[in-house]
């Protein structure tokens, strides 16, 4: 039976669990830090010594941990790309911008268990020789910022943070930095610019890979809140044990944010890939299905920028047969294991782990209009295709939502979206193009019918108003 496996959220919702340090320590908090800092260099058979910090970095690689912020990139590899020879300081930034629509998981950690994040950060900083780190928290979490500041103060007072941590000679400071309502601050190079006190204009890669030229042009690690929490558990249980959770190449647990047309929206922590998309939506332990009399129409599987999946859609997947051979099988949307690789194989992504469910009473035109309005509002404006395209798409959808659409708008939308993706500085270009491409392609009849009907209505009313292209 698919069920939650709470590792990161093990305590957060227990009665009486509080965000203060005493409560955290009563539940074993900061023991992972003591353990790591007390470990000694290991001697390899060939006589080479590896430092405890390097051991932790190796353990994170072994754990298979993939970033929980959106791209699902290996955390161990990300850390190994950090330029350790430049002689410049290395910075670490926790991405607590939580701005991808549909996502509300980091909020649970920040508000209810801030010390878990702080412990994960201290460990990650220690492993990477970081002495100064920041938590970039979205501006709309004012209470979260206060909770974090309080927690950092407690950690300093107990000697887990500051100078000479636990008597080891290691110094680290962590500060909270507040964003101010711009989605693009979630993109790591936009975030870095914002932390430098500038507009959050994403930087062009290459050359500005954070691992080499990040904050203040120094090597920088940017990790999501949930990723950094996982590091704490990797220390506690060991990388190999962590890798036994979940499924191959999709290890550990992950917090899924479920919203939209389900009976029981919420956040559910599951072993990655152990629950299918269908189970997350319908099973009594999770979403409990759709409201009475409603049918599933579509699923946005990984935050609003992921490509939509249509109810009944089938995907070709490689599976091991009973005889141990690789065979290609048809897998229904509902049977897709909710993991990084399966969603990618289905042409979309699990992104930030946010599933938005749409039932058959919903108009895909209006839903896409809502999403596109978000992107039109949030484009930072540096690249012409993104700045103009996101606006044109939103305007065309607004027309379709307000009776002024045309049948040709469906193709018009596809045309604009195709001219954005791959032509921009940052992945926001894809984030705004993918919903449009997938909604319109998979539900083209609905878009065309809406436009055609509006054209007909205008024609019979004897007006040609609203039929111009822009």
């Amino acid at each position: 039976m698919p069920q939650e496996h709470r590792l990161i959220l093990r305590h957060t919702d227990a009665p009486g669990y509080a965000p203060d340090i005493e409560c955290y320590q009563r539940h074993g908090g900061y023991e992972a830090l003591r353990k790591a800092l007390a470990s000694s260099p290991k001697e390899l058979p060939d006589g080479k010594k590896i430092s405890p910090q390097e051991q932790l970095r190796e353990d994170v690689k072994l754990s298979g941990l993939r970033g929980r912020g959106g791209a699902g990139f290996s955390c161990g590899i990300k850390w190994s790309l950090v330029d350790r020879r430049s002689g410049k300081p290395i910075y670490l930034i926790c991405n607590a911008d939580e701005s991808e629509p549909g996502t509300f998981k980091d909020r649970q950690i920040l508000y209810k268990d801030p010390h878990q994040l702080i412990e994960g950060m201290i460990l990650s900083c220690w492993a990477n020789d970081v002495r100064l780190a920041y938590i970039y928290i979205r501006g709309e979490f004012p209470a979260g910022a206060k909770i974090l500041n309080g927690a950092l103060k407690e950690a300093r007072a107990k000697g887990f943070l500051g100078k000479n941590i636990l008597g080891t000679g290691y110094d680290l400071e962590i500060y909270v930095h507040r964003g101010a309502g711009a989605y693009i601050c979630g993109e790591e190079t936009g975030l870095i610019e914002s932390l430098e006190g500038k507009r959050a204009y994403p930087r062009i890669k290459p050359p500005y890979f954070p691992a080499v030229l990040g904050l203040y042009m120094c090597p920088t690690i940017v990790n999501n809140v949930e990723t950094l929490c996982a590091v704490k558990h990797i220390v506690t249980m060991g990388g190999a044990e962590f890798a036994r959770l979940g499924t191959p190449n999709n290890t550990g647990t992950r917090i899924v944010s479920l919203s939209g047309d389900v009976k029981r929206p919420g956040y559910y922590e599951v072993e990655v890939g152990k629950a299918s998309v269908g189970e997350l939506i319908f099973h009594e332990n999770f979403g409990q299905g759709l409201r009475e009399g409603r049918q599933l129409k579509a699923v946005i599987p990984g935050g609003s920028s992921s490509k939509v999946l249509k109810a009944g859609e089938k995907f070709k997947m490689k599976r091991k047969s009973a005889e141990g051979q690789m065979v290609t099988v048809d897998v229904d949307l509902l049977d897709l294991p909710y993991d990084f690789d399966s969603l990618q194989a289905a042409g979309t992504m699990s992104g930030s782990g946010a599933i938005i469910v749409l039932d058959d009473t919903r108009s895909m035109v209006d839903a896409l209009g809502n999403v596109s309005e978000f992107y039109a509002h949030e484009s930072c404006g540096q690249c012409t295709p993104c700045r103009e395209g996101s606006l044109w798409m939103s305007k065309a959808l607004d027309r379709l939502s307000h009776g002024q659409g045309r049948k040709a708008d469906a193709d018009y939308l596809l045309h604009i979206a195709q001219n954005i993706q791959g032509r921009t500085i940052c992945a926001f270009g894809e984030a705004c193009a993918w919903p449009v491409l997938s909604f319109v392609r998979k539900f083209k009849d609905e878009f065309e019918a809406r436009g055609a009907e509006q054209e007909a209505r205008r024609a019979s009313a004897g007006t040609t108003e609203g039929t111009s292209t822009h």
Partner: protein
Amino acid sequence: MSFEVPSELEAELDELTTHYPHKRSASLMFLHALQEHFGFISSEAEEWTASKLGLQPINVHELVTFYPMFRQEPLGRHQIKVCRTLSCALAGAKVVRDAFCHKVGLDLHKHGPQTTPDGLYTVEFVECLASCGTGPVVMVNEAFHEHVTVEKAEQILAGCRGN
């Protein structure tokens, strides 16, 4: 109106600049603190921030115009932000926003933030507030409300009237 930053606040801000190897990084934190104190960011506040951080006023002004949370004129005492993004929209955010507008006498059909003439309320749609499972969600100043219905909107306004 003369622009004066109380010495306590200034000391707090001076401490903030020590968090960063480059003072400029403190700009957003300065603007948050000044907006909290004065209610909005005036051009004096921009100039003051610039001189404290060794910047040109334009370096600060461009932040105020870029980041949606910063305001260039005073808003209502109770700032009501209703999330309009998809999950909240599916849960009925439009009805909730309209109810707020209707009850405080603002135009349902206008876009963008609107403030009542008595300066008590500002109502606006904002983008996803990262609580999509409990929509529609609304922030009133720093307080956060979930599962907001028309009835609940009324209660929230009653709570505002109380202070």
